[in-house]
């Protein structure tokens, strides 16, 4: 398996029908519109974007919870889709935004943790204990918490339980959809640090989805910026912040609250709201909100082109500038 990327997403599209009253023609909007990227083992990739940009749908496609309309997702060379076999399920796991919704309120902690093992291989209790107990200790839980129910734990604790549960099957890729958005700020750092610690211990790859740039900054090695179903920029964390290219990315970074009032912030004010209607017009999806839109932007969708090693941008303005420089 050497040389093969852990995850390869190729030109994936996912569309949903828009229901209209009297019209019989089906109209669609693309939640994920021609997305391609790769991940290596042990890598940590963050996907950032506003709500409605398709990041959650993309995560669900990769997790095998939805079926892509077009395109291919390969994990270690095997196809990922909604009806894939149990075996494949072991390697890709996911944790959600709302920890309490992610666990069955009527199941005790032991039941919750044991469920993946039981579904996969109908393991005996003694065997399951061998796997679960060490993980339990790493997370800071004691044996008597095993008989407790979800409502007896705090949000942060439940999220840790969910992380624990997802690790029970020793996955290679963990998708985290807004893992800390519903937690208190003080707990957020705890969870993120826990995730980082686990990554180095277990050579896990992470795909972290968030709308919060500071979360993405904290945990990612590489960042993908999405807008209305498309990737607009992707780079290593360092490059993205040091050499921001796409106007949308600039606006996102500028919006990060700065705790130091003495530092002046360059305000890149983003006007308007992302709306699906933009998909029905030709040209760049960002045209309505971009200060630097030009005639080409209204006409043609920009391609993802490299601006540096490992740094890609989809923006006519950037590409025109780059050509001028060369």
């Amino acid at each position, binding site marked *: 398996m050497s040389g093969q990327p852990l995850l390869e997403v190729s030109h994936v599209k996912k569309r949903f029908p828009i229901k209209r009253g009297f019209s019989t023609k089906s109209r669609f909007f693309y939640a994920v519109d021609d997305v391609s990227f790769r991940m290596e083992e042990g890598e940590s990739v963050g996907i950032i974007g506003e709500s409605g940009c398709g990041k959650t749908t993309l995560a669900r496609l990769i997790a095998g919870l939805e079926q892509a309309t077009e395109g291919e997702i390969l994990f270690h060379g095997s196809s990922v889709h909604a009806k894939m076999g149990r075996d494949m399920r072991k390697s890709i796991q996911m944790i*959600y935004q709302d920890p309490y919704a992610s666990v069955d309120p009527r199941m005790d902690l032991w039941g919750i943790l044991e469920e*993946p093992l039981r*579904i996969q291989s109908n393991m005996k209790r003694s065997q399951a204990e061998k796997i679960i107990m060490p993980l339990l200790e790493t997370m800071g839980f004691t044996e008597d918490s095993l008989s407790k129910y979800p409502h007896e734990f705090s949000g942060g604790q439940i999220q840790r339980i969910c992380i624990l549960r997802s690790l029970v099957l020793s996955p290679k890729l963990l998708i985290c959809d807004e893992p800390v958005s519903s937690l208190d700020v003080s707990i957020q750092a705890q969870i993120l640090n826990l995730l980082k610690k686990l990554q180095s211990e277990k050579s896990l790859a992470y795909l972290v989805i968030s709308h919060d740039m500071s979360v993405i900054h904290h945990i990612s090695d590489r960042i993908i910026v999405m807008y209305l179903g498309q990737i607009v920029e992707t780079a290593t964390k360092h490059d993205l912040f040091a050499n921001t290219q796409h106007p949308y990315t600039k606006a996102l970074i500028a919006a990060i609250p700065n705790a130091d009032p003495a530092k002046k912030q360059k305000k890149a004010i983003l006007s308007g709201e992302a709306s699906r209607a933009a998909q029905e017009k030709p040209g760049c999806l960002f045209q309505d909100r971009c200060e630097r839109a030009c005639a080409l932007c209204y006409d043609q969708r920009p391609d993802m082109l490299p601006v540096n090693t490992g740094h890609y941008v989809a923006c006519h303005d950037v590409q025109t500038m780059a050509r001028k420089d060369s």
Partner: protein
Amino acid sequence: MFNAIIPKLCRLRKEGKLSILLLAISFLAIVAIAFAAPLLFPIDLAKVSLGDRLANPRFVDSDSPYLLGTDSLGRDILIRIIYATRTSLAISMTGMFFSLVLGVFLGAVAGMFGGIADIVVMFLIECRQAIPMMLIGIVLASTIGPGSFSIILTIIISCWSGIARITRGQVIQLRQSKYIESSRLFGASNIDIIFKHVLKNIASVVIVEGTLSLAGCILLESSLSFLGLGIQPPLTSLGIMVNNGRDYLISQWWLAIMPSLVIVLLSLQVSLIGDWLRDRMDPKLRHASGR
């Protein structure tokens, strides 16, 4: 011991739980006595004693050995009421149980699998709701013959759709929940999910609906027996007793009224217990069953 009970009762009253406790106890007492009837009051239901016919009850004639009098064939009304309650409850509960099983099964399948299964089940529910329950009972009594079996079948056919509809609604809601999705991530099949998660989480709703429907079943059985299309002699039912008592309404009114009161009492208790159970759960249920 009494010193411990009284404060406990007062606390329950404050919590509003005293009434439901009394209600539950009285209902269980009735059920216990009714089902123990052959042990407590062993009689031959077919035996008549014409010499004692139409004796007065004790509240009319204080010398009477019969608490509630006797009927036109000389049989002790009180004992017959106890046996009739037994039959009515046994039939209603059996019917209710099987309709719960059928309703939950079809509702869960429809909700979980969707597609054709859902279309078929919803269509069947619609068909069933287009027919009055009494008509189902009448047709069944006419074709397969009246009796316990036809009533149980009538109850099953009448009540499964309400349960199925509610189960289906709950399952569809649950299907969206994140923990069910998590189970899919581990590779759980629909069957796994139904048994491990769905059944537990719909249990309370189903129990409430079952209890509330039980009252309806008791009434359905009585109505059918009243028309002679239900329980057949030598077994007796409260409905039969009311019907038989109709001819004597003008003089021995207790023959019809006493069994009527028992029907009302049973139905009332079950309804109130069901209402209390439902109020204890979330208010969402009010809209789920449209009551």
